[in-house]
């Protein structure tokens, strides 16, 4: 586990201070959120349906503006900048890719963002090609995005965001509707982006994904952060997760239940559990 710098330190790319948000209907979706995201982190924001995690994520690039509190992006107030300006730093990938796909071909779709940045055609082309290549879309770049499978449409929506070269990539439930193979392909690509320096904010309730990928976990419930810890810390309290409509991965649950026979509770993956069991001579 790589220790991350102190939250709010000089490395923080995003900082939210006492952010509250109330929808026009009067429903309070965020009730005072304090959160700092450091450069290069792989942060998972988890919570049940209606916990406020998507609302929180949409504040990160100005898609929603706080009712009160403030947001700093690279140390500067987000309130003075437009969504288009913020999109250069924080890329947001919608849960439903169809909400952001509108061009005739994958190539045009992915080039759209960079061409709006005022870059020259060669640079636009280079960025689009690179994003298409990273997301494994070269074989479909001439096709209409809407003719593709959900898994490929989701990859196009991510390609169109990373073509803007944002430092932070916010992914809202990126594996919803994908099958095991598609989800695993997608998560490998996201991991690679993180290893190459992108800060990742993953919004999800798939705890196996979180256990496998994230190095920090923020648990939300009722519009508030109820826990902010590394992945092991986040899964150490199944009761708190359950009250947040979440369940730890089955291996972590099993480790907790086997604690009386000497198994460490500190388990996130099948491999770690098997190591624990064979070490104790139990398996």
């Amino acid at each position, binding site marked *: 586990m790589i220790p991350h710098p102190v939250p709010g330190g000089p490395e923080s790319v995003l900082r939210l201070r006492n952010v509250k948000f109330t929808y026009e209907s009067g429903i309070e979706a965020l009730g005072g959120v304090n959160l700092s995201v450091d450069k290069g982190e792989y942060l998972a924001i988890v*919570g*049940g*349906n*209606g916990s406020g995690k998507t609302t929180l994520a949409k504040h990160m690039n100005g898609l929603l503006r706080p009712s009160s509190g403030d947001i700093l992006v690279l140390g500067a107030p987000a309130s003075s900048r437009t969504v288009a300006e913020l999109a250069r730093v924080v890329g947001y990938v919608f849960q439903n890719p169809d909400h952001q796909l509108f061009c005739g071909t994958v190539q045009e779709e992915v080039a759209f963002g960079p061409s709006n940045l005022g870059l020259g055609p060669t640079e636009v082309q280079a960025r689009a090609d690179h994003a298409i290549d990273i997301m494994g879309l070269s074989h479909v770049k001439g096709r209409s995005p809407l003719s593709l*499978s*959900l*898994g490929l449409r989701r990859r196009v929506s991510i390609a169109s965001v990373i073509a803007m070269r944002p430092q932070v990539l916010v992914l809202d*439930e990126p594996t*919803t*509707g*994908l*099958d*095991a*193979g*598609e989800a695993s392909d997608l998560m490998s690509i996201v991991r690679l982006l993180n290893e190459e320096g992108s800060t990742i904010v993953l919004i999800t*309730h798939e*705890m*196996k994904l979180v256990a496998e990928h994230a190095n920090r976990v923020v648990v939300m419930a009722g519009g508030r952060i109820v826990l902010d810890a590394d992945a092991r810390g986040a899964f150490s309290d199944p009761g708190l997760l*359950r009250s947040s*409509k*979440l*369940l730890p*991965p*089955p*291996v972590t*649950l*099993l480790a907790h*239940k*086997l604690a009386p*026979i000497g198994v460490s509770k500190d388990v996130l993956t*099948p*491999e770690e*559990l*098997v190591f624990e*069991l*064979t070490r104790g*001579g*139990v*398996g």
Partner: protein
Amino acid sequence: MIALKLEGVRFRYPGASEWALDVPSLEIERGEFVTVLGPNGSGKTTLSFLANGLVPKSVRGDFEGSVEVFGHRVSDYTVAQLSTLVGTVFQEPDSQLFCMSAEEEVAFGPENLAVPREEIAKRVEWALDVVGLKGLGHRPPSTLSGGQKQRLAIAAALSMKPSMLMLDEPAYALDPVGRVELYSILSGLKARHGMTVVVMERDAEDLVEFTDRFVLMSGGKVQAVGPPREVMGDPAALARAGVSPPQMAEVASLLNARRKGPPFGFLTVEQAVAEITVNAHRHTKGGSR
């Protein structure tokens, strides 16, 4: 009694060269909880449309073979008539909710069958209660959470008093606790009302404990049919079909690869606790001898 019987069924969407579904034979018994497991594009949704006749009556294409529900040939009845035998719940509840209140939504089906008013009121109360929406009958569906909408869609199917429920990825987009609650409700319908439940899913993880038999699908074909331990105990077949085993099956197979004793076969956390503690006990006794 056979709840659903497919014989020589093939279906191809217009203009497609491949069969979306190609099932020489499949039988589901009355009162079974069956999970049809497969990746996207494996034919699950198409299969779910056979029992109520939507395929080929509304969803057109080349169709061959015969489909029977509870001994009735589906082709002899209208989709509306079949809804009293088979309740169908689509993947996205929003696509089938359109009334002003949850109650009206649940009453809509039986009203169209001219069921007497008092009987409808009873059915609505029962169906909302079964799915855990008691007291929310007056709420407009749009004000319900994703999980509540999904349960409302199930209540609307239940008010027709079907003998079988066919649900296409009913836990789509639900949070983990919501998923388990939903599957528990379906399992209760089987246990207390003898309902035949057929769930189409991509991921077996939360369904293992509720499922009597898995039907593994890929490329429109049935690759395996059997009880959980049989189908989930074959990681190679699961990988070929493009689905992940439940995490506990993964643990069991990793352990089995490095132990000499009888293989573990657990699929759920509870089963794992039982098998591993018994084994640890035996191990301790053996060690002290």
